[in-house]
């Protein structure tokens, strides 16, 4: 595993992001992320970002994959009624 400081900081930020937005209930996403979700191009860019993260580092990529999944599911469930 590459243990460069930048990679460790990125992993820490992503773990904190996933814990905050994935594990805690009733946490609102930033307004910009919510406003951009309806645009398909934004979601395509996020998936391409996920692919780039997977190529750069497996650890970063898996954490980004979890974050993208939480984001997609939370917003899509929020904007549609149960």
């Amino acid at each position: 595993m590459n243990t460069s400081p930048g990679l460790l900081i990125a992993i820490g930020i992503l773990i904190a992001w996933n814990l905050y937005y994935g594990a805690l209930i009733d946490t609102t996403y930033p307004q910009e992320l919510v406003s951009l979700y309806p645009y398909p191009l934004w979601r395509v860019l996020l998936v391409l970002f996920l692919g780039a993260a997977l190529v750069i580092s497996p650890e970063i990529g898996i954490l980004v994959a979890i974050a993208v999944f939480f984001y997609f599911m939370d917003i899509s469930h929020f904007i549609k009624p149960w």
Partner: protein
Amino acid sequence: MTAAPSTPPVMKGGVREIVMDFSKRQMAFVELVGGILLILGIVFPANIPIEFRKQASTLLGRLLLFCILVIILVYGKWTYGVLFTVFIAVLLSTRSPKEGFTSEFTFNMVNDKKKWWVEQVLNENPVAIQDDKVSTNAIQDNRETTTSSVQDSKSSR
């Protein structure tokens, strides 16, 4: 007289090379098409037919998805495996757009600067709402026994 070689001669060129080269090119093409389909599946999960999602959510469907994931991980790149995992998670978590109160559902984004009084009191921060207009009607007294539709607050019993 020389002895026969112990190892069989390795054939180079010919049809074998052509077939190997063709299969490699086809594999790259399949990976490209599969990657694009995965991206589209992750981005537009609600557009996947509901029957397909229902079948994918059954025991057999989940086993099939798991087998496809194992095949991708064995024969393909692991990055495609992670993308396929995200696709499976999105596929199994997406609800049908026909569920809920109405099938034709639209929403409006809420501006932070305009908050209703009840939202301020209850400290609510809605991001999107379904209806931005509410139609109300005045209360009608349709009882036949009453002579007036206006209640007299001063009248005594």
